[in-house]
């Protein structure tokens, strides 16, 4: 149980490649902070592909069932990250660096988020919308005087 060769100590990594009849797709290379920063824009841009994938997974949770929809999701996410870096690179980078330094909490980086959102709106016409906001309630990212502010 304590030697490094025993099965309980080492992580199990399987390097066998996929079968050759599955078209290869490059994985998304962004880590957690840039993904969190771009999350709502990925949602706005890739809405149909994401919903297809989720509905497909809802039918059958087997990994082999939803490979095609998954490839579309991956390609769409890669595409939007490429577009964000092309058009709004500076604002994107400052926002995700700020998030990374502050426990990846959105409320602590609102000014930079506002700049990033205006840049994306001007260049890519994508808007951050929080799904499930009740009608008539101001979305938390647009509040001018929030209760929980960055300290």
């Amino acid at each position, binding site marked *: 149980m304590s030697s490094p060769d025993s*099965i*309980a*100590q*080492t*992580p*199990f*990594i*399987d*390097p*066998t*490649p996929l079968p050759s009849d599955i078209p290869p797709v*490059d*994985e*998304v*290379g*962004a*880590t*957690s*902070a*840039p*993904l969190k920063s771009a999350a709502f824009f990925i949602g706005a841009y890739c809405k149909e592909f994401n919903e297809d994938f989720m509905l497909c997974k809802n039918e059958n949770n087997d990994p082999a069932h939803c490979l095609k929809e998954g490839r579309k999701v991956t390609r769409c996410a*890669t*595409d939007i*990250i*490429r577009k964000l*870096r092309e058009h709004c690179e500076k604002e*994107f*980078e400052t926002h*995700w*660096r700020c998030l*990374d*330094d*502050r*426990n*990846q909490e959105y409320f602590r980086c609102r000014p930079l988020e506002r700049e990033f959102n205006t840049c994306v709106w001007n260049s890519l016409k994508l808007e951050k919308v929080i799904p499930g906001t009740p009608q008539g309630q101001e979305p938390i990212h647009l509040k001018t005087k929030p209760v929980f502010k960055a300290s």
Partner: protein
Amino acid sequence: MPIPFEALIPFGFVTAMFGVTGTLLHAVKTYKNDGKNPRYGLTQWDRQMMERDKRLTGSFRGQTSNPVAPPEFAYNSSLYQSLQPR
């Protein structure tokens, strides 16, 4: 009446000791987190994302915004870390 300054010397010691140990702890935590503030309140989602970050970049808190991952990323995921429950 003059201030009894000898009585304030232990206060000075205690403050200095708290300060030194606190500073050293902050320095060690920052060093461990690649120069960033430590993360707290981690959920299972955060832990899984941080493990993915480590696989992508090689360092514990490294971040990158490349659109595509390096080719070895597709094959270095571990199916389980160990048999102990997470």
